[in-house]
C-alpha cells in the first residue's frame, strides 16, 4: 500500500515538473542564467588570445568609478529620465481626459494620439531626423520662415539631449494615455455628478477625486516609464549614435558600445550589473513609498 502510494506520488510529481518545464526552461535560459553569468563576468578581466580571462575581484568596479564617460552617460540618463517621465505622464493624463470627453471626431483623435506608440522606434527616429536636419529639416525651415537662423540641433552638445527627450515624450505619452483612458472609463460618472452638485469645480474634482482614484494607473505607468527611460535607446542608433562627444548617450547605449564596439564584455557586464541594481532599487522604492498612497478598488 505504502509503496503504491509512493509510486503514485512520484508519478504525479514528475507530471508536475513536466508541466512546469517549458516555462522554466525559457525563464532559466533567457533570464536567470544570463543575469547570474553577467554578475559573474563582472568579477573577471576581459580575456584575449594572449592573456586568458582571470578573476580580478572588484577591479572592474573600481575602473568604472574612474570612467568619465560612465559618469557623463549616467548624468545624461538621469536628466533624460527626470524630464521625460513627468512630462510624458502629465501629457498622457491630459490627453486621456481630453479624449474621454465629448468632442467631435473622438475616435480619430484617440487614434492619432496613439499612433506614435504603434510605430517602431526606428521609424519614429527617421521621421524626427527629417525634422531636425539642419537647413532642410522641418524645424529649421519653419524657424527660417519666422526669421530665425538655422541650427544644427543634433550636432550641438547643448541641444542634442533635449532633442532626444522630445522624441521620447512624443513616442511614450500616447502609450500611457491608453492606460489612463481605460482607467477613466472605469470611473462611475455619478462621482463627477455628485461632486458637481456639492459645488466642486472641475479642478477640485480632479484633485480630490479623479487623480487619487487614478493612482494605481499612475504607479503602473510610472514604473513602466522608468524602465523605458533606461531600456529604450533604439532612436539613438538613428539620430545621434550617442554623440557628439557622448552628450546624447544613455547607459544602455554605452553598454552596447562597450560590449560590441570596444568588445570589452567584462566591463559591459559590470555596467549591466550597475544598471540592473539601479532599476531594481527604483522599482522597490516606488512600490514601498507610493503603494501606501494608492487606493485600490
Amino acid at each position: 500500500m505504502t509503496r503504491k502510494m509512493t509510486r503514485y506520488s512520484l508519478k504525479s510529481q514528475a507530471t508536475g515538473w513536466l508541466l512546469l518545464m517549458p516555462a522554466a526552461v525559457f525563464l532559466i535560459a533567457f533570464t536567470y542564467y544570463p543575469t547570474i553569468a553577467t554578475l559573474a563576468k563582472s568579477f573577471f578581466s576581459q580575456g584575449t588570445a594572449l592573456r586568458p580571462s582571470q578573476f580580478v575581484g572588484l577591479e572592474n568596479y573600481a575602473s568604472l568609478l574612474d570612467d568619465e564617460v560612465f559618469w557623463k552617460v549616467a548624468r545624461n540618463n538621469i536628466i533624460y529620465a527626470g524630464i521625460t517621465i513627468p512630462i510624458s505622464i502629465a501629457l498622457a493624463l491630459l490627453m486621456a481626459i481630453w479624449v474621454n470627453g465629448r468632442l467631435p471626431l473622438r475616435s480619430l483623435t484617440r487614434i492619432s494620439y496613439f499612433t506614435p506608440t504603434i510605430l517602431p522606434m526606428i521609424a519614429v527616429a527617421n521621421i524626427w531626423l527629417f525634422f531636425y536636419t539642419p537647413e532642410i529639416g522641418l524645424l529649421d525651415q519653419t524657424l527660417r520662415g519666422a526669421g530665425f537662423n538655422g541650427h544644427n540641433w543634433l550636432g550641438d552638445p547643448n541641444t542634442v539631449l533635449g532633442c532626444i527627450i522630445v522624441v521620447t515624450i512624443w513616442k511614450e505619452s500616447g502609450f500611457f494615455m491608453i492606460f489612463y483612458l481605460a482607467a477613466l472609463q472605469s470611473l462611475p460618472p455619478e462621482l463627477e455628478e455628485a461632486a458637481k452638485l456639492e459645488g466642486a469645480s472641475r479642478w477640485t474634482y480632479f484633485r480630490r477625486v479623479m487623480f487619487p482614484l487614478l493612482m494605481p494607473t499612475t504607479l503602473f505607468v510610472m514604473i513602466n516609464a522608468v524602465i523605458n527611460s533606461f531600456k529604450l535607446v533604439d532612436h539613438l542608433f538613428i539620430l545621434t549614435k550617442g554623440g557628439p562627444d557622448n552628450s546624447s548617450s544613455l547607459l544602455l547605449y554605452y553598454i552596447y558600445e562597450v560590449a560590441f564596439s570596444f568588445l570589452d564584455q567584462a566591463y559591459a557586464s559590470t555596467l549591466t550589473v550597475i544598471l540592473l541594481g539601479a532599476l531594481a532599487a527604483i522599482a522597490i522604492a516606488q512600490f514601498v513609498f507610493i503603494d501606501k498612497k494608492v487606493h485600490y478598488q
Partner: protein
Amino acid sequence: MSAIELSDIVKRWGETTAVDNVSFKIEDGDFVVLLGPSGCGKSTTLRMIAGLEDVTAGTMKLNGVDMTNVAPSKRRISMVFQSYALFPHLSVEENILFGLKVRKIPRDERATRLDKVAELVGLSTLLDRKPSQLSGGQRQRVALARAVIAENKICLMDEPLSNLDAKLRQDMRFEIRALQERLNMTVVYVTHDQAEAMSMADKVILMREGRIEQEGTPDELYNRPATVFAASFIGTPPMNLINTTTHDGAFVIEGENQTQVLETSLSEVLIGIRPEHISITDDQGIQAQLLSADYQGADTIVNGLIGTQKVLIRTPGRVAINKPLHARLSWNKDNVHVFKADTGARTELINAVSV
C-alpha cells in the same frame, strides 16, 4: 410660490423624446414620489431638476426663481444616487464633509454639523471607515448624511433603496420619511416600486412614456385611478380589468352573459375591481370558476374566471383549491371603476351595479 415648479419640460435625445411636456408643482416640505416603470422618464426628470441633464424646452423654477439653465452647484440641491456615488478613497467622515470643504465652511462649523448629522443617521462610530468596509445599508446612510449636511431645502433621491434587501428597505423607508419630516425637507423621490410610493409619499406623480399619467395623493391613486395604466400599476396584485359586452340588451361580463354589471354603457368599457373588493359567496352573486390559490400568509390570492375574463380575488386566511370549482362572487358597486376601452380613461358617466 412652490418649492419646485416645472412648466412644459421636454427632453429629447435626437429622435427619442424621454420627457414630453411635463408640468408639476411641488410645495415646500412635501415628500413627492415620481413613480413609473423603467424608461418612463422619471429619472431624467429628476436629473433635469438637479441640472445634470440639459432641458430641451420648458422652464424650471426653484422657489419662484428660474433655474432652467443654472449650473447644478448653484441650485442648492442635494442628491442621493442609486449607486450612492460615495468617493471610494475617502473615509466616511471625508465623504460627508466633501461638500462643506468645497464650499469653504469653517472647520468649527464643519465639526458641529458632522456630529449632528452622524448622530442623526447613526454613523457616529463608523466615521473612520472606508466605503468598501461598510454594508449596503451603512453606505446608504453615508449618502443620506452627505445629502443632509449641506442643509439644502431640496433633496432629490434616485431609487435610493433599490440596492438593499427587502427587510432593510422597509426600515429605511421609515427612516428616510422620519428624517424628511424632522428636517422639513422638500424631497423628490424616484422609484419604480409602487409600495414605496404608497407608503412614503405626500403626493405621487405617476409617469408613463415621458408623460404624467396621474398626479395625486396615494389615496387618490389607489381609490380613483385616472386611467387603466394607473389602475394596473398601483396595488399588489393589481386591479382586475374586465371586458364587458352587451348581451340581450344587458351589460354583462364577456362570456358570462347572465348578470348585469353596468346600468348603462356608451361604448366598449372595462370595469376595474381590486382583488380585495371581491368576495366569495355561497348563494348570491355572479357565477365564476376558481382555478388555483396563492397562499400569502395573512390572506390568499385566488385565481378565478368569470366568463372568459381572468380575475384575482383576495380572501382572508388560507384557502386551498386543488381542482377547479364553481363559486359565486360578489362586489359592491361603489368599488367598481369604469374605464373607456379605447382611451383607457376613467369615466364617471356610467354606473355599475352591485352583484
